């Protein structure tokens, strides 16, 4: 199994409780040691994200979101696709949020061929290093979902939309 060309980026702040969900999920995927899969971490800076996915074909992002759904709910957005609900990602203190990085890349024709964004519904963004129970469960679930995506991408590198 070779996942060359697949980039997975976990996004978040590990000192803000559930905001670390994306980072922890990415670390679990990294532990699977799937050949060729490039797993990286990002603190939410959109400009940095754009550099990460430059010239990449298949990119999967994992971030914590707040939409009002039940904590631990896993949202999936596939791009190109419908407009992202920017309000889900409003907890970035960075000047470029994740949706802005995606929109700017799209405007400049620099989006990866396939970009999937998983949002894990958070219950808290307070200071701390432990996840809430629901989000911890979601992090474990998303690793299985990602594994499926990776297998599909390996079979069909044109994307998992």
């Amino acid at each position, binding site marked *: 199994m070779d996942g060359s060309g697949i980039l997975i980026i976990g996004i978040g702040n590990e000192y803000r409780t559930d905001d670390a969900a994306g980072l922890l999920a990415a670390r679990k995927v990294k532990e699977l040691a799937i050949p060729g899969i490039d797993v990286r971490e990002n603190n939410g800076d959109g400009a*940095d994200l754009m550099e990460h996915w430059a010239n990449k074909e298949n990119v999967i992002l994992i971030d914590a979101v707040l939409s009002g759904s039940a904590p631990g709910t896993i949202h999936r957005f596939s791009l190109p696709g419908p407009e992202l609900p920017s309000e889900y990602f409003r907890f970035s*203190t*960075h*000047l470029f949020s994740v949706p802005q990085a995606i929109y*700017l890349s799209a*405007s400049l024709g620099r989006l990866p061929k396939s970009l999937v964004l998983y949002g894990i519904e958070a219950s808290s963004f307070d200071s701390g290093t432990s996840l809430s129970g629901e989000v911890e469960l979601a992090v474990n679930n998303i690793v299985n979902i990602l594994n499926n995506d990776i297998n599909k991408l390996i079979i069909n590198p044109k994307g998992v939309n």
Partner: protein
Amino acid sequence: MQNLSEKKAKQMKNKTIKVDYMARVEGEGALYLKIKNGEVADAKLKIFEPPRFFEAFLRGRHYYEAPDITARICGICPVAYQMSAVHAMEDAFGVKISKPIRELRRLLYCGEWIESHTLHLYMLHAPDFLGYDDVVQMSKDYPDIVKKALRLKKVGNDIMSLIGGREIHPINVKVGGFYKVPTKKDLMKMYDEIKWARDAAIDTARFAASLKFPEFLQDYECVSLVHPDEYPFNEGRIMSNKGIDIAPEQYDFHFREEHAEHSHALHSRIRERDNYLVGPIARYNLNHDKLTPTCKEVAAEVGLGTECYNPFKSIIIRGIETLYSCEEALRIIENYEMPESPSAEVIPIEATGYACTEAPRGMIYHRYRVNEDGLIEDAKIVPPTSQNQKTIENDLKNFVPMYIDLPDKELIWKCEQAVRNYDPCISCATHFLKLNIQRE
């Protein structure tokens, strides 16, 4: 009964306008404007982000932890914070560093200035001048300019990564020098891209100068570091265009911080006068003669002159300073000789150390008192945005009357643009800026 036009006129003179979230600034704060009888009765930059207590965190910590702790104050200008801490500790302990270490520190500053200025100039401020909500909208009409901006910003980030170990909150900086220093070969790998960046920075200054600026001149007291031989990054005397000429250790005698009820960031004032200005305009006005010949040529070509008192033109100076940073980076790389040791020996003593350095958005002051065990007993950090707060408020008081009859939406746009002249980093000062205009 008032007719419709009289009512409308009265509303224009006395009105409340609220904007909940002002984008494209770093941090959380609000702007309050009270307009009474067609005049600005009050202007307050309200910083409501909770205090972050960095000075308190530092107490009881070892002197060598200060660079890594203070770097966390800001994700955009961490170098200026950590280097100010480093310089202050070295001042306290009498540490002398080698020339190559000093040069590498200046190179690290070059990276931060290129990255920070490019981000603000193109991504945050240019959309104001060109009439776009943000850079995403702007990129649809100016894709090549935005692509160039991203590449230019990356050059700055790459310099920070190479020298600092990573681009955000660098980890390679220590009191006395660095943990690890690059070889000349390492630096030369960036040389051609920095040469590209130098040309891109010339285009950047020209692009900035092509924007339309309001005629708005202010009588600022400009405060900046001044060094006899170089455009200031990390060393020099504190000088102003109204007579201040002091060493950093005299800062507290000439400047004071005071609490303003509406802000969690302390307001700075010159003790014997009032508010003052730090940042690109202040630096440029006091250090134009220290710029490189190319910087002076480009500044003259775009009609900047040797001094500038229009805060809106700070965007041009950011372009010139980006050019300076590229040229300085090239000079440093060309002349670099790897130091024998990555750092000087540091022996802590009971002492107080002082330092000022120039963050992209203005001068920073650090003061530390350290005991004989090398533990920090007291710390004082004055960031640029808190120094500029009162000047931002004054600008608004003077600027808004020029546009007081504009519809609210357009007036708010102008006010936001005026605040962004300062590239305010509200997180540093104590994150969103809410704009609230009240007309009575």
